[in-house]
């Protein structure tokens, strides 16, 4: 449970519109959060490993991962996160517009923590983001960093 601590969220999203919407939604949440955004898969991994320009970055408490990404796709990023011992405990929420069954199945087989399709409706979108935050930071017990 979050005890008023600031949570770090890594949003892997190349669509600037969605970035704004997600930020907006998160702003409305009661949980104090710090959202960091990367726009492709390569950068996401750099960030997670704390390499290059992300050397000073803190490891996030939650990853919101889109599947359609330039360079390295979301599923590849997921695969690597869940294979690497130091990263695999980070919860990964797939947040994508894809409703393809194969994407859903693949994601869970690669140990995604959950799969959420971006709601088309703005209000629902805000609601979903709020719920994600509420669930992961208010209900779920996470391992220490």
């Amino acid at each position, binding site marked *: 449970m979050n005890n008023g601590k600031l949570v770090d969220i890594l949003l892997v999203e190349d*669509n600037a*519109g*969605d970035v704004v*919407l997600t930020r*907006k939604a998160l702003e409305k949440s009661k949980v104090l959060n710090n959202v960091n955004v990367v726009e492709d898969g390569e950068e996401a991994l750099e960030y997670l490993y704390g390499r290059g320009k992300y050397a000073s970055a803190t490891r996030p408490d939650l990853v919101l991962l889109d599947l359609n990404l330039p360079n390295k796709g979301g599923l590849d990023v997921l695969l690597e996160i869940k294979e690497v011992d130091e990263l695999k405990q980070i919860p990964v929420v797939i947040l994508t*517009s894809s409703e393809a069954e194969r994407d859903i199945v693949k994601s869970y087989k690669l140990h995604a923590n959950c799969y959420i399709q*971006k709601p*088309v*409706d*703005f*209000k629902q*979108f805000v609601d979903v983001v709020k719920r994600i935050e509420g669930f992961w930071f208010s209900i779920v017990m996470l391992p220490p960093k």
Partner: protein
Amino acid sequence: MSIRLRLIFSLLTIAIVPMAFTSLLLFTNLKGVIVKNFINESPSLVTNEVLLSEINSIGQLSLIICFVSLFLILIIAVSMAQTISRPLKLLEFGVKFVGKGNLDYKLNVESDDEVGRVSLAFNQMAENLKKVTASKNELNKEIDRRSKVEFLLLKRTKELEQLSTTLTEEKKMREAQRNALNNTALVSETDLEGKIVYVNDPFVKISKYTEKELLGQDHRIINSGYHPHSFFENLWSTISQGKVWKGEIRNRAKDGALYWVDTAIGPILDDEHKVMGYISIRFIITDRKQLEKSLKESNQELDQQAQRLKISNEELEQFAYVASHDLQEPLRMVNSYVKLLEEEYKGKLDKEADKYIHYAIDGAERMMLLINDLLAFSRVGSQRKEVKKTDCSLILEELFQDLKLVIQENKASITHDPLPTIMSDELQVRQLFQNLIGNAIKFKGDKRPEIHVGVERENNEWKFSVRDNGIGIDLKQSDRIFVIFQRLHSRDKYPGTGIGLAISKKIVERHNGRIWIESKLGQGTTFFFTIPIIKGDKYE
């Protein structure tokens, strides 16, 4: 007067002469007595009394003599007449008897007189007559025999005539057949080597060679080169075995024109059943071949078209899916940002701006609905059909649960027949029932909705019906209702995109069924749809 009478009469005449003479004699005697007495004048000699008695005695005597002689003459006459008339009578009887046809009867020839001679002559005549009669009988028999022969001959002649008529008719028929054949068929004959020895006019005409050019040639002269060598090898091997070869050949005329012939070639056999040549009968089928060809071509064309259509249908479905799917992404942005705009700027700009934002949101929302429906519609066609046992009664029960709120809100009463278990894509059939029942509730009239789901088994298919007592549909519009995004009512009155029935139709068609409606405006609508019965179905 009979002979006998004439005889008696003549004899009596003869008898009168002596009697008259006797009487005269007596009278003379009597006169002498008287005279003598007168001459003597002696009254003493003869008294009157004596004289009288003398006269009386003479008279008496002459009377007696007269009667006696008359009697004698009568006896003689009768017996003489008898002797003359008896043979005559016999002759008369004999003649009558023979005249009646008894030619074997012989007259008794007793006398040597005229009657005897007549009898003899008569017997002779009867004999001759008998002979003649006998030969007449023979003749009659002969005539009989001959007439029988004649009859038989006549009969035979008639039979022969008939036969000849039949033969003539047959000949005529054969001629007619030959004429018909010559009018329609190409006939040619070849010798054993295949050299043409006979061609009929049509053969000559179509080949555009002269008869002279054709005779002595083999059929290679009209070979078009279309058929492979093996084709003719097969032909030759068939006919050289004495069998009939049948097939279609493309030939080439002298001027290069091509023509197709339906051909039968068979052997011509001699009296000992040895093959002495070949006869071929061909019918021109160029037109048919052309028709076949164009038919084949148009069939191919159709197949190709169907294939293209299928591909384009698939592409269209794929397109609809991809388009609606990909449209969703930017639409989500539009929708989200107009909503955000509304949320953060409503009341901060002027009223006009608020109105514009509202229209933008309304448009975006409607577009979202349409795209969702389009996706659902294209999914019906693009998803793999999973056919399994589907208990329709169970589906309805589940549906009633799902629609519980709507049903309660509208106070609808829904009943159904016992429904069968069918082989179908369960999800789609559920959607189908949901669409139809949903529609039935949605388009309710003033009355409380009463809906009945029925089923009948007709031949090899289930005929389902969903009957309501709603507003009904103008049947003139019945074609439109199944078309995607076609609506009969304004959105304000009855919300919806007009996708439900289009999806329903697609589902039914994907199950090889048909869907149609029966309706009366203001009185309700019944939707019918059929699902073919396949193995595994059962009626419960």
